[in-house]
């Protein structure tokens, strides 16, 4: 696979729903060996971590009540939330730099619908996605014209 092909595949897997890394590995695997390659990549990527996490889940089910473990996990999740905020800010920065007010408004609307109003995800996406596609399409035509 060339660098261009990789970038193209990477972009593709970013706009498809679902876990991006898993999608990427399946497309990557299938480029080499068809369906069998896709399945092999899927199993290879998910198999070992799923086994490890299942063991951790079993340990948590058994020992999750221990106060020291609960305190430790609480500390880890505080830090993990911080990491997530940093990732969100990095992604948001291009929109802010471009002064993409329409994009930021859509972002805020989705945030409010999911985070504040706690609406179901499918409903929000089924409304927001066509809207966002229509706006993007309209703005590109205006730029082109």
């Amino acid at each position: 696979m060339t660098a261009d092909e990789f970038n193209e595949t990477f972009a593709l897997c970013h706009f498809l729903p679902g876990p991006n890394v898993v999608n990427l590995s399946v497309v990557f695997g299938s480029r080499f060996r068809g369906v069998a390659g896709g399945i092999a990549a899927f199993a290879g990527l998910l198999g070992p971590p799923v086994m490890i996490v299942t063991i951790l889940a079993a340990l948590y089910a058994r020992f999750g009540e221990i106060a020291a473990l609960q305190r430790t996990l609480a500390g880890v999740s505080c830090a993990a939330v911080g990491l997530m905020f940093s990732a969100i800010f990095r992604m948001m920065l291009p929109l802010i730099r471009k002064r993409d007010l329409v994009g930021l408004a859509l972002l805020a609307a989705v945030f409010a619908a999911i985070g504040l109003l706690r609406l179901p995800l499918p409903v929000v996406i089924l409304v927001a996605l066509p809207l966002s596609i229509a706006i993007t399409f309209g703005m590109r035509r205006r730029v082109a014209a």
Partner: protein
Amino acid sequence: MSDHGFGSLFTLAWTFGLMSLFAVGGANAAIPEIHRIAVDLRHWMTDTQFADIFAISQLSPGPNVLIVTLIGYQVAGIVGALVATLAMCGPTAVLAYYVSRFLTRSNQSPWPAIIQAALVPLSIGLMSASGLILMLTSDRSWIAVLITAVAAVLAYATRLHPLWMLLAGGCLGFAGVV
């Protein structure tokens, strides 16, 4: 943990199978929906357990979709873990396979780029909602909020490996600071 039978496996399968098709931006963007269903709707776990499971998933090696594996285990043991993982990853993997084959055949269409650009604000909005939901479940004291803020600044401003911050958070938690 007992096996809750076929019914809960079926619920896991269609819950995550359906969710994955709308999980624009990957597993981290789906966290509010996972929380809504697992804690508020189905009462599979408490808020604290959800925060614990999020912490375990972040500590684990591998893709961050593994939070679904942990929830599956909590609901229906090992089989539940497998069913939830396959339901979350399988349908979209098949979709990715077919879409990539279709796109290599017709490469001139402007639509992939338009759809991709249209999805950017939506996935960041979903991620921001994830941040809020996780903050509400995890940060139960001012010290906790401070740890989150420090981790965010360090992750943004330095090249420190994320695992160090998770470990530091864990140590502070163990010491009883949080």
